[in-house]
């Protein structure tokens, strides 16, 4: 039995017996290669669910939609490993009650996918620890390495080119499960810390601060990078932050539901090579 069928059956069961009120999953999109998020609330609709290696989006962001979970009913969600880490962070940051989340876990395996055992985020604890020990994507990204070999001036030009394209549509923010703030810093205009105009200066400020806010929280699901309509390689900057959190503070985002945010905690012996 394929995972798709297996999970459809489980979704049907959970919806029929009322264990969950909703299943957030994937279904077919406009083109054969596209998958789009789908919200299934009755057992009759479960056949719309599609699960294959083209299902990439991290759906966890939908769980923090205002008032979705306020009735204390459970919601099932299809999640890749990054999505499970997102759940850990969202739980650690008091954005959701993990007991209300039923996880349909899966991970890529070559050209196909395989199911992950477990339903509650807690049951994935060991799995997430194993991810932190063997990060599936190596920390050394060739583009990052190339960038780091550049002079500061060349890097600045690289990002100037990239950020000059930004149209401030905020698709990166909206697609990101970690950007759950009721009011984004960029929407504060008293004072206006970040210039909202999509000129390069404002775009620099926006993208830098967003990356800073994601430091130690980004699980590198790629939602922002894929959402960007002007193809800014946002993954690079977030990856760099993840590497920094790891190297400087031994912090792997979303390791557990009790993990302290890297920027709200400290160690007295944190390294400080650069402070005069």
């Amino acid at each position, binding site marked *: 039995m394929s995972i798709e069928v297996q999970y459809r059956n489980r979704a049907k069961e959970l919806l029929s017996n009322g264990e969950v009120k909703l299943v957030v999953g994937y279904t077919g999109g406009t083109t054969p290669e596209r998958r789009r998020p789908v919200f299934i609330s009755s057992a009759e609709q479960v056949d719309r669910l599609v699960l294959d290696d083209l299902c990439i989006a991290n759906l966890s962001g939908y769980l923090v939609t205002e008032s979705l979970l306020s009735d204390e009913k459970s919601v099932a969600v299809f999640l890749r490993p990054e999505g499970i880490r997102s759940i850990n962070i969202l739980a650690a940051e008091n954005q959701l009650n993990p007991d209300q989340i039923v996880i349909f876990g899966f991970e890529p395996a070559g050209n196909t996918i395989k199911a992950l055992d477990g339903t509650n985020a807690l049951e994935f604890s060991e799995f997430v620890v194993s991810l932190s020990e063997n990060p599936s994507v190596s920390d050394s990204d060739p583009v990052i390495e190339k960038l780091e070999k550049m002079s500061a001036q060349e890097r600045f030009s690289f990002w100037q080119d990239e950020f000059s394209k930004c149209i401030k549509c905020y698709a990166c923010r909206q697609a990101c499960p970690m950007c759950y703030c*009721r009011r984004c810093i960029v929407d504060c205009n008293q004072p206006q810390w970040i210039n909202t105009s999509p000129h390069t200066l404002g775009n620099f400020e926006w993208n830098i601060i967003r990356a800073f806010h994601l430091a130690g929280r980004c699980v590198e699901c790629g939602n922002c990078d894929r959402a960007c309509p002007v193809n800014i390689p946002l993954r690079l900057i977030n990856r760099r932050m993840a590497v920094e959190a790891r190297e400087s503070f031994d912090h792997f985002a979303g390791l557990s539901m009790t993990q302290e945010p890297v920027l709200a*905690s400290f160690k007295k012996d944190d390294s400080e090579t650069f402070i005069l």
Partner: protein
Amino acid sequence: MAKIGVFICHCGENIAGKVDTSRLAAALGDHPGVSVSVEYKYFCSDPGQESVKKAIRENHLTGVVVAACSPRMHEATFRKACAEAGLNPYLCEIANIREHCSWVHSDGDMATDKAIDITRSMVEKVKRNNMLQPIEVPVTRRAMVIGGGIAGIQAALDIASAGQEVVLVEREPSLGGHMAQLSETFPTLDCSQCIMTPRMVEAAQHPNIRLLTYAEVEHVDGYIGNFKVRVRMKSRFVHMDKCTGCGDCYLKCPVKKIPSEFDCGLGKRTAIYTPFAQSVPNNPVIDKTNCIYFKNGKCKLCQKACAADAIDFEMQDEFLELEVGAIVVATGFQVQNTAMYGEYGYGKYADVITGLQFERLASASGPTAGKILRPSDQKEPEHIVFIQCAGSRDPSKGVRYCSKICCMYTAKHAMLYAHKVQGGKTSIFYMDIRAGGKGYDEFTRRAIEEDEASYLRGRVSKVWEENGKLMVRGVDTLLGRPVEIAADMVVLATAMVAQPGAKEFAKTIGIGYDEYGFYNEAHLKLRPVESSTAGIFLAGTCQSPKDIPDSVAQASASASKVLALFSKDRLEREPVIASCNEATCAGCWGCVLACPYNAIEKKDILDRSGRVIKQVASVNPGLCQGCGTCVTFCRSNSIDLAGFTEKQIFAEVMGL
């Protein structure tokens, strides 16, 4: 519309001598929102302050910027003046154009440019200042004094005698500190214990003093008027309520060769012991590391000897949580270990000793019952060489500062030796004789003139043993020739340094310290007994080297500060605190974790039917100290800090 008054102080020539104040006044006068821009010789003077008040009233100013010295000097002065003129004091800011500008720059034009930037930036800030009201907090009328030396005892007695409760915490088994170790005291040569022990007993018996010996402060929480202190009561293995202090236990103790800390290693003590005969309290403690029972599980001779059944080998450390309103830190000093002077042979030759060891030799209660005898052979020395500044005023090996008391105690030692050993010769190597103080210079003169101490101005380069003598080679710089003296004993006037662990302890209680580990006063001249943390005061040598009269004076000063604090039911605190915008807070709790004071609480927002709609952060104004770490953490910019709001800082930067 803002109406800002800019008041530019010349500070005599201090500012006006470098900064072109008329250009500054003109530039600010031309700045939007500035109604008044004037200069004056001394705005901090009475007429100066009056002119500020007058300008506020006449021009209906909405904010004031005083371009003058550091806000640490006169912010309070001018805020008070504003309040007197009917302007909320928090609508006044200081532009620091003296310490940060006129005093530190050579080029007048550039200094003036900088002064304009600084002042304009403050104008932009003050335009966005809010009217704030001081916060009132209750005061717990109970003080804690940490350290039971002369300073701590003095502070405790002063506070207690004024009718307030005191908890006196001493980490050793007995009160007394260093003063109890001294023989006679300069400049009067009265016996230290004779004046010390009555004070110790008084402190122990005072109805308002709760004495905790063999106890250490482990943690301090809270803030002025409302500290919470955790004290570890180290287990003595002797129940104080049962012990009669008879001493049978230590007479029976088979371990008798432990070097006595009190006698600086010159005497011996047992494993169950009181530090000295006059200990207060007079109840012994068991030194676990040296006790046979704790090593081998056998012995308990002391327990058998104790008729009062006071000894309990199962005793555990206990913890007390105490609430106090003020803390006096009187943790004292230690004598510097002079091992770094290899050339003096301290530690190598038994007869090279420290000044404090000499005190024990000279003390009637000391290991030699007051006889000056050489530790090596218990013979009376015929010639003693004293080396002053053995650590002090020596940036290369010791400490940079002067330990202040060594000139005096060395003179005292020379006198005591002369009085006790007829015909004994004394040579004192010194750099300068510093004898400032009542009766001090007379005292050193007496040592020279009456007791024939021979003072040699110069340093000692080497001490070595030769034919049973300690050969001291030095130089007499006044005569300009090398000197070699065959001595029987060498006494080093070692430096007074901070207690080991002084820095860690400062961090525990949250006060500042200098590079040496001495605790920082809030202001060296004007607030010398207050630490930089409100409600924590300093007494004695934990702050800097000082002698007994100074320690006692500072202790009494601290006590008076505590009493002043306790004279009110409630305290006014600066309203520089954070607050949270509940509408925009995302409730991520990062601020709760980041807050050093646990001042941020989780708050449920309920709908009409009492259902939790969302959770947000909420700042407890009583606990918040205004550091602003939460503000920086907050991703949605939902927390802000009064006095240093986002708007103010933005304007300040943009105004530069």
